[in-house]
């Protein structure tokens, strides 16, 4: 009898804990995002009903989304990477200078992609080695990485470099429409119907996304699958939750930490290239503060900096919430630049306090 009741109690507790960590924070974030967007549609009306407005948020923040995914991985193991913004900047500058050089080969575009991934991987491997095997604090290591990347960027060029390579421009201008059904034209052909909205003249304008969004979503899905169903992904959670018990379970803690930094570096390289595709130029001012935005999105998405709690889908909704509140503030007519920052900070503050309250309640219920 007693064991039975114990079992029941254990089950109850388990359910509660399951809801209390990752999922609850993520659900709160999704609800807040939806409420925010619906309020914007109802009260502001200025374009929020158009699908293109939503897709523009994605277009502009595709690189931030990739950076946030990488950041989530590192934060899951209890680390942090603040070099991603400057690595993005470095990737843009290196690729721009490479594509603009005289006498290019026909495969310049592919080589520039390899350069981007190579830079990201190099930073990831060096930082990961220092953090995991030489046991430095991740904050300091990536701080130095940030300084190094900044110095390298300005050493390559001080000025803004606009890219004029024809194949690259063609790739940038690639617009992908989103099919949402089929219609039959008057001649009887079956034609796909694209998502979009009518403009002022009554013509149907197809909404489009850039190639970067597709890359970002692909990265998101890959990482989601990895975290959910692979051994490596589960070991990220284990290492972040408790270092020592993960070690006792036979997980190679050092290798896991190393790999999280390598993957984050890879994400920074890919994110840098996506930023490059969006901006079509290299400049020392690119992606300023992107690392803080990425950390903020990951936190709003429910990833805890203490490690072990988080979800890669949270990064998506974190980025969406962050950029939606920015566009709401902009469309409210508060044009002054400071309002955006203050609202973002306020939102971050609310989510942090929410996290902490939930965490302390969970700890109490455990006792």
């Amino acid at each position, binding site marked *: 009898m007693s064991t039975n009741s114990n079992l029941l109690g254990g089950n109850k507790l388990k359910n509660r804990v399951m809801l209390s960590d990752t999922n609850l924070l993520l659900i709160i974030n999704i609800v807040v995002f939806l409420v925010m967007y619906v309020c914007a549609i109802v009260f502001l009306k200025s374009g929020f009903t158009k699908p293109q407005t939503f897709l523009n948020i994605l277009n502009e923040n595709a690189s931030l989304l990739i950076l946030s995914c990488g950041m989530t991985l590192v934060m899951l193991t209890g680390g*942090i990477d603040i070099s991603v913004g400057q690595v993005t900047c470095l990737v843009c500058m290196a690729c721009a200078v490479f594509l603009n050089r005289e006498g290019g080969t026909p495969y310049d575009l592919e080589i520039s992609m390899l350069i981007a991934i190579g830079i990201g991987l190099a930073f990831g491997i060096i930082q990961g080695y*220092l953090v995991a*095997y*030489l*046991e*430095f*604090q991740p*904050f*300091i290591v990536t*701080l*130095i*990485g*940030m*300084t*190094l990347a*900044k*110095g*390298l960027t*300005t*050493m390559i060029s*001080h000025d803004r470099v606009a890219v004029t390579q024809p194949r690259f421009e063609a790739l940038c201008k690639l617009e992908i429409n989103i099919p949402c059904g089929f219609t039959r034209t008057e001649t009887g052909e079956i034609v796909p119907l694209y998502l979009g909205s009518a403009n002022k003249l009554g013509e149907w304008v197809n909404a489009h996304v850039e190639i970067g969004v597709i890359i970002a979503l692909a990265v998101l899905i890959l990482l989601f699958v990895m975290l959910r169903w692979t051994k490596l992904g589960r070991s990220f959670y284990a290492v972040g939750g408790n270092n020592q018990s993960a070690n006792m379970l036979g997980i190679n803690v050092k290798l896991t930490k190393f790999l999280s930094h390598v993957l984050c570096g890879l994400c920074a390289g890919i994110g840098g290239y996506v930023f490059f595709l969006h901006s079509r130029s290299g400049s020392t001012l690119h992606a300023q503060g992107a690392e*803080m935005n990425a*950390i*903020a999105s990951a*936190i709003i998405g429910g990833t805890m*900096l*203490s490690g072990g709690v988080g979800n890669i889908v949270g990064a998506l909704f974190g980025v969406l919430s962050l950029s939606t509140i920015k566009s709401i503030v902009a469309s409210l007519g508060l044009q*002054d*630049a*400071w*309002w*955006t*920052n*203050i609202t*973002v*900070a*306020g939102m*971050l*503050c609310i989510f*942090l*306090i929410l*996290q*902490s*309250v939930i*965490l*302390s309640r969970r700890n109490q219920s455990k006792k």
Partner: protein
Amino acid sequence: MTSNENRLKTKRSLMSLIQILVPIAFLLILVVINLIHDPSFFKIGLEPSSAGNLQLSGNIISIVDYASELAILAIGMTLVTAASGGQDISVGATIAIAGSVVLNIVKRYSPDISSQKFIGIIILAFLLSILVSAAFGAFNGSLVAFFKIQPMVATLILFTAGRSIAAWINNNENISIADPRFGYFGGFIPGIVIPTPVLISVLCMIVIAVVLKFTNLRLYAQAVGINSSSSRLNGINPQIIKLLCFIILGVCVAVCGLIKVSRTASITYSVIAANIELDAILAVALGGNNLGGGKFNIASSVVGAYVIQFLTTTLLNFNVSSDAISFWKGVAVLALIISSSPYIRRTWTDIKNKREAARAQEQVQPQNTVKEEGV
């Protein structure tokens, strides 16, 4: 027993000595490099300024002068690091707020007032900026202490919003103060040959040394940093200690804000004290303090701050372009931090232990014990 305690004590003081020796050794390397490259680097002159007052000049003076803000920040940052086990990344933004408050008050009241009271207005503005930045420090501190948010994340809020708040205070206007006396705090007071920021930073160091000597702040901060819950069981309130450390950092930030705006007599919200938080954290790390909290050595961090400024000036002296400075700075700091990493230290002690064990095996057993007692 007492000899054991004594031994422990000497060992402890030796440890803190070793800790401060690391940045000093780095400083010495820089000095030697400069001596070989250009001995006139160390020339200190006494020259009259444009107003006719005598002032000290030279590379060393400018290093000590420009490192003042960093040294003051390093004091507060070390305390915060020790007690909370994290760093405050909002100091640059809070400096902008403090400077903005000072300029706002001085600009608002200075035109209507007789010139004798000008200094009084500056002091009033300074006190108000101390209040404001201590309040922001308390905000950060309460997030860390009561809501148990990691310090770096809690201060991310102010890091994002701080410069915007600073611009908001002055309605994004570019304020500049024409009165030359406003520049005293960032330049020279007539009749005194030492730059005022140096005097202010020395004053801050004396104050913190006195506080640490005569209060239990050091012990409490270390106890909270090493183990928060066991310090609570010993009757220390960890939340108040953490809050206190953040408020002290807030006061340090206000002092830096005054020096910064006094140097230029104006403010650029997005540029003022940019990246100073990173340099301050580096100063703490260079000083050999554990960034995860616990034991700390403020003198060591302050030396670390001067090392950073010395490095920058040395690089400029070597005609490194100002763009590439951050790269070489990163390389130098990386080398230093690798050399003092826990892994390298452990390997080093491992090698030493093995050697000692080998020596002990060679020697006869009784001799060995006698030797140990002698030590």
